[in-house]
């Protein structure tokens, strides 16, 4: 079967997975990117969020054949950057993490937002994370964490 090539966290990679395999399964099982979480499996909860060509997408409802040639970034890739560290620091300071399951997806949504808009207001933050469900926090601490991340990482985006 033909190899499917794409860029994963800055590395050129390829997979021989079936093109209709779910991207989330290929990322987790073949590339060991277990920061990509499966929550709902139908694009509602955002736990499986990654960046595709700089935009946030749900990897549970993408087939791997759809991402040939794309540039993908997972939570692992983002966490290893100064911006990722600023996001983590902002979240930690705000006490934004409770059970933690939604956090990697939230961090991806935060990175997607701050790339487009390095100084978002509260409404823009809430819109940016509207596809990411958290059942613990009530969102207030996450919104606060994103505000803090934007300040801590000021100039990085």
């Amino acid at each position, binding site marked *: 079967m033909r190899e499917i090539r794409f860029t994963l966290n800055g590395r050129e990679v390829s997979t021989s997975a079936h093109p209709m395999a779910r991207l*989330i*399964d290929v990322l987790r099982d073949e590339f060991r990117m277990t920061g990509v979480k499966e929550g709902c*499996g139908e694009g509602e909860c955002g736990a499986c969020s990654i960046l*595709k060509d700089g935009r946030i997408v749900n990897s549970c409802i993408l*087939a791997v*054949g759809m991402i040939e*040639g794309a540039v993908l970034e997972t939570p692992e890739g983002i966490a290893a950057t100064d911006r990722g560290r600023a996001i983590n620091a902002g979240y930690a300071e705000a006490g934004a993490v409770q059970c933690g399951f939604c956090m990697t997806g939230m961090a991806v*949504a935060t990175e997607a937002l701050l790339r487009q808009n390095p100084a978002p207001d509260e409404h823009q933050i809430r819109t940016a994370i*509207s*596809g990411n469900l958290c059942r613990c926090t009530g969102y207030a601490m996450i919104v606060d964490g994103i505000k803090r991340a934007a300040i801590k990482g000021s100039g990085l985006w």
Partner: protein
Amino acid sequence: MVTFHRPVDLAEALQVRAETGAIPLAGGTDLLVRHRNWAGTLPRIDKPVVYVGHLQELRRIDISGNGSGPQMTIGASVTYSELLDHPTTPQLLRDSIIELAAPGLRNVATLAGNICNASPAADAACALYALDAEVELAGPSGRRRLPIAEFITGPGRTALNNDELVTAIHLPPDNSTVKFYKKVGTRRANALSKLSLCACARIVDRTVTEIGIAVGAVAPTIVRDRDIEHHLQNTAPEQLALRIPQTLQQYAELIRPIDDQRSTAEYRKHTALALIEQFLTHELR
């Protein structure tokens, strides 16, 4: 096992479609959810799939001008986010997209997919009814164009033949001066509509010259009635106000919602009529 075709161009996509009857796949936000399977397994689809999301011929937004304003041609693989980023996207369509799903879905989902899915609750399709959109189809015998109301023939049913693909959606110039979009859903993001109203009108010198009212999720297909609209045209807003009771009665006959997990028929009908009344009473000025 499901077969995945990734054609190099539209001609090859049409050939695959004609030879195998493959299901077109663009963003996949409906198709891959409907056929979802256990983690680590392939989706359960009994037909081959032909991917069209990457085809450059379908990824374009073209603007052509005539005297009355810009005409927009939206390629079938253009995503909602790309429409939001485009300065020519009509406000009514923009308003419906902003309230639709969430960023991660809008980044992959397409307008053409929304109409091919043909849900009566399709929010963006509702805007297309109000905006007089036309759907362009390509097949072995060439291209054809259908008004959106003729393209969607029933819940989940369209006029698309097994050897055809949707290639574009055409929007005529939007000359409306009043736009009104209201979606009633359970929460702001990611909620499918209980019902929605997309309405627009052109008022020139205190006369309503054109009016378009589309109601979503209240009948087997989106409701738009040219005869009722015709009776509201070429009147001053205050004359039009006198016709509201009769107009609402006419819409009441067309609005035949169902009970489902999202809402009840009674609530849908009551709220849809209230929104039409609000549009006619408060927005037209």
